[in-house]
């Protein structure tokens, strides 16, 4: 099934010659497409590169792995592109390579997601491979073995990587008793028990059209997209929307956990209960986070921890949202001897922000940055598709990109202060330190 190679080269080069930049594209224009089968998609038609990119997801993720089958969703997602229909894994991969198509699946706590990227001249083949992966995945025993062994090796490696250990420890601590505590990549014991039949069953349970969300970007029109989506996804059952995990009760007491590792530098994560995406104070929280430890080199944490004291190379904070939980997480890493000082400075900054809020200047600067920053990430078809897809997951409307600016502009000093008081509570802080920290101990004792 490999196309003649001269033909292959010609195919690729023809695509390049057909490329013409779009005439003065400004803000991206999102169209809503509903297919004859009822699949709803967002589309940004963009002819500035000869590429079509798709970003999509299904309801249900690793948090709903059945008991005793942790890791099943993640492993299944990997195996979707390891052979389908009459094609074994090698043949399937060769078809992707020969079409310059790249198809991949992955799982988060709440969703099973996929991306397709293909040179537009080869989109017949790209969408056909997508259809095969979705509707006829094989789960051949030798590929299941290979991916399982790789998954176990990754767990072994993660056990030795301070950042991974910190991340895992944070989740198991914060979400003890909740499905979000489980390792998305599974446990070694559970992974060993996963059979092709169980993987197939998991695929059948999640790959349903009822919770499907699709975004498309690139050199493709509305009618054509609708036709191709129906063909690729039409073979899936409609199904029922997956139930959500139970509500999460955030911790109400401070906690510090030290995980010993023989490394010269300690990795730190500090987490607080965060704010839901649909909370009226969301943008106030976004601005607060930007001032505190947002991306770039302007934040208070960057200034106090790195610039002024040289305590760390990286220090940042971020808002994380899940379907059933939200977090504000601060991360940094500092030499074992100095990490206690770094943690102390972070705490001081949190207290300062909680008491005094942000300044007029900080508010204004954050607004300009946040208004402009979204455009900075629109640098490839895939990133535009990814952005749209995240808006869809958050339940926002296509005009959100237009409304967003006004929502940011409307944030007042008072609302930032309010949200700072609400979120930055020392008594709800969970701190995880991985390394051989001096002067930091687990509290309360286990």
């Amino acid at each position: 099934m490999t196309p003649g190679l001269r033909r292959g080269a010609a195919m690729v080069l023809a695509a390049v010659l057909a490329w013409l930049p779009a005439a003065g594209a400004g803000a991206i224009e999102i169209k809503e497409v509903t297919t004859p089968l009822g699949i709803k998609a967002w589309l940004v038609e963009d002819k500035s590169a000869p590429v079509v990119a798709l970003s999509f997801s299904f309801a249900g993720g690793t948090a709903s792995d059945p008991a005793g089958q942790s890791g099943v969703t993640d492993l299944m997602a990997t195996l979707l592109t390891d052979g389908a229909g009459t094609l074994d894994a090698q043949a399937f991969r060769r078809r992707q390579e020969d079409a310059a198509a790249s198809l991949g699946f992955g799982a988060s706590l709440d969703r099973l997601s996929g991306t397709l990227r293909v040179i537009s001249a080869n989109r017949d083949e790209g969408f056909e491979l997508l259809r095969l992966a979705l509707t006829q995945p094989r789960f051949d025993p030798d590929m299941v073995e290979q991916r399982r062994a790789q998954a176990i090796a990754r767990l072994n490696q993660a056990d030795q990587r301070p950042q991974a250990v910190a991340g895992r420890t944070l989740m198991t601590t914060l979400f003890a008793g909740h499905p979000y505590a489980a390792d998305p990549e599974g446990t070694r014991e559970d992974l060993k028990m996963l059979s092709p039949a169980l993987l197939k069953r998991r695929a059948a349970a999640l790959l349903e059209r009822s919770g499907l969300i699709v975004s498309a970007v690139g050199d493709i029109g509305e009618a054509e997209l609708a036709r191709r989506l129906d063909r690729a996804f039409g073979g899936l059952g409609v199904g029922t929307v997956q139930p959500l995990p139970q509500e999460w009760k955030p911790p109400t007491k401070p906690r510090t956990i030290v995980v010993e590792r023989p490394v010269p530098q300690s990795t730190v994560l500090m987490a607080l209960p965060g704010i839901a995406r649909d909370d009226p104070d969301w943008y106030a929280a976004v601005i607060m986070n930007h001032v505190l430890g947002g991306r770039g080199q302007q934040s208070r944490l960057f200034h106090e921890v790195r610039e002024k004291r040289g305590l760390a190379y990286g220090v940042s904070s971020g808002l994380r949202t899940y379907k059933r939980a939200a977090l504000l997480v601060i991360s940094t890493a500092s030499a074992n001897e100095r990490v206690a000082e770094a943690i102390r400075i972070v705490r001081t900054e949190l207290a300062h922000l909680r008491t005094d809020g942000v300044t007029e200047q900080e508010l204004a600067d954050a607004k300009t940055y946040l208004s402009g920053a979204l455009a900075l990430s629109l640098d490839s078809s895939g990133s535009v598709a990814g952005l749209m897809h995240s808006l869809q997951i958050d339940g926002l409307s296509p005009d959100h990109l237009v409304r967003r600016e006004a929502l940011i502009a409307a944030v007042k000093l008072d609302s930032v202060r309010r949200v700072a008081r609400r979120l930055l509570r020392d008594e709800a802080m969970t701190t995880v330190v991985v390394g051989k920290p001096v002067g930091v101990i687990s509290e309360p004792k286990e």
Partner: protein
Amino acid sequence: MLGGLAASAVSAPSFPALAKLFTVGRRAAESFTLTNGLQVVVLPARRAPIVTQMMVYKVGSADESFGRTGVAHFLEHMMLKGTERVASGEFSRIVSRNGGRDNAYTTFDSTGYYQIVAPDRLDLVMRMEADRMTGLRITERELISERQVVLEERRSRIDNVPAALLDEAAREQLFGRHKPYAMPVIGYVDDIKKLNITELTTFYRRFYTPGNAVLIVAGDTTPEIVRKLAEKHYGPIPNRKVEARRRPAQGGTDLPQRVSRADARVVEPRWSCDWLAPSYRVGETKYAYALQVLARLFGGSETSRLWRALVTDSKIALSASAGYSPASLGLSSFGVGVHPTPQRTVREIETAVNLEMKKLIDGGVTANEVERAQNQLLAAAIYAQDSLASGPRLYGAVLSTGGTMADIDAWPERIAAVTPAEVAAAAQSVWRDSGAVISLLTPAEGSR
């Protein structure tokens, strides 16, 4: 395999030097040179209302000397401090306040600074970049605190990472102790600890000058706009002569060598082999294109020879790959890396890799394999064109290591012209014991 070349936030381009694919379309890439010697490259793309400015200086860690490593990278950090006009730490704040982002990176051969901003802020970031080309001021206080930051960066990237420590040891053997590419980009701890202002400013004055730099502007702009702004901001800066940079024509002298690291922090062993290889500039440069094709078909994907033999068929490895990057001012390296399946011995891995190499050299490669690899390389070039981030990086990597715009234009044809016989000849030329370093990463004795 040896790690990427970059020490900073962004790693060196993983694609080989690309392609005139950037220039196809209505607006081609344009290059011109100001009278002070600054080369300017414009890559117009209208995808989004953003522009990337990247200033690449033709100086990197390989321009340091033994006992004084880490200067290029440390200077990169200090460039974010102040000048006469911009207060310390304000550079990034001003960019951010204007809705933009900035960062920088250091490699063996180059140092790059970039900002991504709205098109109407290009004037602003050019003014600031021009200002710090000559006006940098470093104070003792800032140096002392930044030294801690650099040491923390080194801990994060190297000292906390056993594979990175092994890399350092492998490079010392491959390129020869105390030689430019043998020393880590970020520098050795002892050197970082004693670096002083005089060394930094001497290095800065010696290499940071218009004639030793390439300015790349990509995104929603035109060559006309860029020329006007570049002349306004960079034009008045007088050029200083920079002596030609030198790289050794030879690598390590006592090869082959084996280096190993048994580390309590390792659970999954790794086997890898690196060979001295030509770059576009040094060594058997005629093989620089064939080696890119070789790396792709030998270990560039899960359908490659190595993956099929070791992972799919004999199942003695969990992964296997090959890599090669020709954009280097001096010698480069060709690497093979294998992650063995549990219970498999290093000897088995080595035998299997050797067998695959022998098969390739004895039996050659098929026209079909070569053409598939060529297609994959060209496709990667098209996707790179789809991203506003990769264009400047690729141009920067080529133009700062002695390459020209014509080289970039000719890349697709040169890749497409590689024959099966050339691939086999390149393999034979590079896979010599006298150019090899084998690295082995294992758990500490008794730790597992």
